[in-house]
């Protein structure tokens, strides 16, 4: 394989994107009608891309596994979306947003991509407002901003605690309009099973109709994967039950490189695990940390008493409380970035200071802010979150401190893409959380929504057009072609192979086992020994899975267990790659913390000398991956140690 | 439905006004005069046609909508719905049907007599049907009065939901006025039936 070419345009950073747009190739309206694009996923990136491409005049087919495109998991994002509008006049700018994102990502993201992200952030807000997204407003009618996730400026736009929902519904409405106009064809309850490659270019997909179980062939001049992240490899995560990494894993097997798989983000404010039967973890917005103070008991015996239910949080006197974030990071206190906050909580719990029945929780206390601001203000700000907490935990958070624990939330890693968001397979584009591009080793709060919509509304419509300008002479390829038949046959064989196992253990059993291995060994604190152990355990589990999984029913009908098995089979391989990448990266940065590489204070010890690159993995065969490196070159910024003290 | 309903509710006020004439101890002079006026005045005749139209449309549309509503859930739930809803709101079609039956009885006793479809021995000096006597004859029978009272109470139930519902359908819903609409509707749905009920009670108990 040749050197990775990111195709970053030349020229000064701030004019790269406009230069790209000025010089890119266009497709005339008559030809657009003759070009088909397949989009997989209807989240922020997928829906916005499909809607925009449909508006431009392309023929779009869009797929989602849910019953409606409106259900994609972008809907669950709570906090907000960043933009460099500088409405509050607090000194924000495109450069600052760019800089904060690069720094927040611990200098492991591609500079030009991040700059472009910051550059188009303002247009996203314009677009969403025009669509009727009900952002929060000031009394004067102007848009309200808040500070979020450790930023020193207020640049986050929000719609109560449901920003993701509102942005997704905005994209969904734009998509619905195109569906009505006939430019986009919707395939709901369809799962992409594989990509079809003809003469080295992505030309379509094999999809499974989840209701009939039928395999379908779909042609496209280009294919866009916007299927989200792979956090469910950990089983328990804040992802939706159906969120999966199969689309990206299948294209990985077909030649798309997978970048930085070990960069997974653990979110600090989730509701702790309460039992074995638990199916997912519920996130509570990071904004809670604006007014809540995080603490554990100072004395181990107090923590132990609390775990046994003998000592209530409120009975622990002030002097015996350890506000460990405020103690360790006086400048940022409870508002340090997610990776830092998560790790600090884990460190306390591991040291024996954890609270709650499992000992895997820390307190998030609002007593002080309720005293200072009044219960009303807290209720106005976080009422829905408090209510949600009470519903789940059955405890009143106005009176007792909340209990929180970190949970897997977001995956910064993903399919390697160049500046045009094209993977190493020609004509195969990847957008949103599914790609690796903009967040480096750690994503800042309110940046995921920004990236998803940037890719879909403002990047892909240009770069895809540039690519398709070279495809205008390619007539629609019949799906009877051998490559389609061959790919479909492979998919069928795989499903039949799964069905034929007829073992004794359920899919969920294996998924939970995998999750445990991942969380314990490839979670927040990683060591060489544990990572090696994880790889071994995963391999063993995978072999067992292929021998002993039990799937009822047949592949030719609605078969939820088969759907799950197919996804878990991919996670089984993916977990190994994550561990392998984590093993290879002998440094700590962002969400990737290797215990061997830390400062004396227990902070990330980055190694820019040896690891300032994107690790792009190539698939050779099962468990056999080859590493390619894309060096990260920073022209505009000085690489510094990330300090939040 | 809502517009027709509001129209019919206004009519009820007029109807009650006339009925209350029965309470005057004048041997039915006022009441019969009113009945005479209602039966002969040409403007009233025009309104009568509109009123009948209103009734028929209200019943017709109500029936069609109800059939559509039943059809929109071809397979029913095993467990009947336990959602909290205002008790009477779900039974408008049934209270409506009862009111329709009542209306037919009512027509037999009064309106059809004027049309001469039903024979009637009570004649006033002017040779017109003496509706005062007819009413008196009916109301002094406890069974009839009781039935009348029950049916009027059911009418009250129908009206109670009808009033606020009509405004909701017309789009009149504002936090500042919703309270008033509900209050007024309830008062209306109590006062109008009370007025009607008072008449048989008067004939039965007081006179």
């Amino acid at each position, binding site marked *: 394989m040749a050197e990775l070419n990111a195709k970053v345009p030349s020229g000064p950073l701030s004019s790269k994107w406009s230069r790209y747009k000025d010089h890119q190739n266009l497709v005339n309206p008559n030809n657009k009608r003759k070009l088909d694009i397949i989009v997989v996923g209807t989240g922020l990136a997928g829906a916005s891309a499909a809607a*925009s491409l449909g*508006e431009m005049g392309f023929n779009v087919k869009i797929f989602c596994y849910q*019953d*409606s495109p409106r*259900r994609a*998991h972008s*809907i*669950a994002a709570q906090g907000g979306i960043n933009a460099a509008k500088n409405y509050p006049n607090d000194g924000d700018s495109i450069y600052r947003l760019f800089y904060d994102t690069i720094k927040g990502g611990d200098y492991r993201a591609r500079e030009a991509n991040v700059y472009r992200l910051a550059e188009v952030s303002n*247009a996203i807000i*314009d677009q969403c*407002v*025009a*669509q*009727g997204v009900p952002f*929060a*407003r000031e009394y004067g*009618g102007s*848009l309200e901003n808040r500070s979020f996730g450790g930023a020193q400026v207020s640049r986050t736009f929000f719609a*109560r605690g*449901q920003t993701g929902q509102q942005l997704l519904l905005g994209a*969904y*409405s734009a998509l*619905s*309009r195109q*569906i009505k106009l006939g430019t986009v064809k919707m395939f709901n309850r369809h799962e992409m099973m594989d990509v079809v490659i003809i003469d080295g270019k992505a030309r379509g997909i094999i999809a499974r109709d989840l209701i009939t179980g039928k395999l379908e062939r779909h042609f496209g001049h280009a294919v866009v994967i916007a299927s989200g992240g792979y956090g469910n490899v950990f089983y328990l995560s804040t992802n*939706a*039950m159906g969120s999966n990494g199969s689309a990206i894993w299948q294209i990985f097997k077909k030649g798309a490189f997978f970048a930085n798989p070990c960069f997974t983000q653990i979110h600090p404010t989730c509701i702790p695990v309460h*039992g074995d*039967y*638990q199916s*997912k973890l*519920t996130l509570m917005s990071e904004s809670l940390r604006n007014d809540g103070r995080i603490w554990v008991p100072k004395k181990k015996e107090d923590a132990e008493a609390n775990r046994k239910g003998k000592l209530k949080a409120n009975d622990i006197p002030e002097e015996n409380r350890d506000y460990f974030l405020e103690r360790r990071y006086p400048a940022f206190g409870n508002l340090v970035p997610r990776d830092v906050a998560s790790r600090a909580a884990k460190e306390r719990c591991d040291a024996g200071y954890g609270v709650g029945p499992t000992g895997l929780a820390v307190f998030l206390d609002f007593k002080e802010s309720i005293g200072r601001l009044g219960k009303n203000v807290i209720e106005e700000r976080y009422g829905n979150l408090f209510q*949600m907490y009470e*519903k*789940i935990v059955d405890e009143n958070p106005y009176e007792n401190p909340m209990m929180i624990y970190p949970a897997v939330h977001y995956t910064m890693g993903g399919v390697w893409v160049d500046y045009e968001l094209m993977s190493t397979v020609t004509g195969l584009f990847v957008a949103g959380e599914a790609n690796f591009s903009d967040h480096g080793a750690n994503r800042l709060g309110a940046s995921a929504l920004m990236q998803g919509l940037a890719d879909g*509304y403002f990047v892909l419509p240009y770069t895809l057009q540039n690519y398709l300008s070279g495809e205008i002479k390619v007539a629609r390829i019949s799906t009877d072609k051998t490559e389609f038949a061959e790919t479909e046959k492979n998919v069928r064989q795989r499903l039949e192979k799964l069905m034929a196992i007829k073992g*004794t253990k*359920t899919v*969920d059993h294996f998924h939970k086992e995998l999750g445990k291995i991942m969380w314990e060994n490839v979670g927040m604190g990683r060591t060489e020994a544990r990572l090696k152990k994880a790889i071994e355990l995963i391999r063993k589990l995978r072999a067992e899975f292929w021998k002993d999984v*039990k799937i009822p029913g047949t592949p030719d009908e*609605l078969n939820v*267990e088969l759907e799950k098995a197919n996804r878990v089979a991919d996670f089984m391989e993916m977990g190994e790659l994550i561990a392998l990448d984590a093993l290879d990266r002998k440094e700590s940065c962002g969400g990737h913390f290797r215990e061997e590489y830390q400062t004396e204070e227990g902070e990330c010890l980055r190694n820019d000398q040896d690891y300032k690159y994107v690790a792009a993995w190539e698939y050779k065969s099962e468990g056999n991956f080859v590493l390619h490196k894309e060096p990260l070159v920073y022209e505009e910024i000085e690489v510094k140690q990330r300090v939040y003290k | 439905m809502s517009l027709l309903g509001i129209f019919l509710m206004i009519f009820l006020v007029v109807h009650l006004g006339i009925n209350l004439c029965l309470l005057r101890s004048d041997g039915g002079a006022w009441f019969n005069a009113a009945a005479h006026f209602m039966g002969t005045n040409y403007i009233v005749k025009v309104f009568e046609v509109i009123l009948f139209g209103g009734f028929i449309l209200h019943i017709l549309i109500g029936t069609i*909508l109800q059939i*559509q*509503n039943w*059809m*929109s859930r071809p397979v029913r739930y*095993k467990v009947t*719905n*336990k*959602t909290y809803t*205002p008790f009477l*709101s*779900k039974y408008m079609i049934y209270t409506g049907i009862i009111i329709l039956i009542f209306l037919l009885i009512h027509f037999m006793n009064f309106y059809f007599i004027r049309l001469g479809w039903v024979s009637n021995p009570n004649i006033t000096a002017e040779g017109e049907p003496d509706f005062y006597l007819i009413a008196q004859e009916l109301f002094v029978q406890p069974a009839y009065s009781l039935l009348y009272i029950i049916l009027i109470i059911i009418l009250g139930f129908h009206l109670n*939901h009808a009033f*606020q519902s009509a405004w*909701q*359908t017309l*789009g009149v*819903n504002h936090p500042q006025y919703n309270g008033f609409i509900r209050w007024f509707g309830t008062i209306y749905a109590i006062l109008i039936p009370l007025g009607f009920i008072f008449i048989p009670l008067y004939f039965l108990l007081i006179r």
Partner: protein
Amino acid sequence: MKLILKIWRQKDAKSSGKFVTYNLDNISPNCSFLEMLDILNEQLISQDKDPVVFDHDCREGICGMCSLYINGRPHGPDDAVTACQLHMRKFRDGDTIIIEPWRAKPFPVIKDLMVDRTAFDKIIQEGGYISVNTGGAAEASSILVSKKNAELAMDAAACIGCGACVAACKNASAMLFVSAKVSQFALLPQGQLEAKERVKKMVKKMDELGFGNCTNTYACEAECPKLISRSNIARMNREFFCAKVS
């Protein structure tokens, strides 16, 4: 906890279904309702039986995919939550729980408890949007929206499209769902230009699809997990009349 479950089982859209009774034991009160069904399914699979199919995805009450009619109430006995956020502590040990799919003509059953709600998508496709192309938007600060209207629009926009309103309504009416979308745009200046066409088209589609009529029983409002107000229905009626007469 011990539970007796009576669940609607239906092989596919064409088959006729029936209730099947299952006994479950050792359920933690902290378990969510869907986790309880997961446990049931694990048991069914190990007994070589077909697991119960039900729609679910985010399990945090926002995607709107879960759709269970539990003991006579959409999303079960707790107020203002979806079935995924319902916890077993809301039931008593030994309870019999009857689980049915949403029932409405426009929501045909696909399998067991899974129904087809694409009718909602079709209504949105008729006009549940503001026609603005990507890139054609004006500077966001040029559009001012009063805080009050922004809040009301957000109240309406909070709808998750789960269909509990239809499931609860004795007429299987979709008025609350449709009015939430109509209201959101009617309250915002951006939505004004298309307002009349929007409400007419969406209402027409809703009727075509076979949803029932609104008789103002407000069961929809009582069951809405996002507390969408009936005032949206009134607003839609208002918009509809105005659109029809002008």
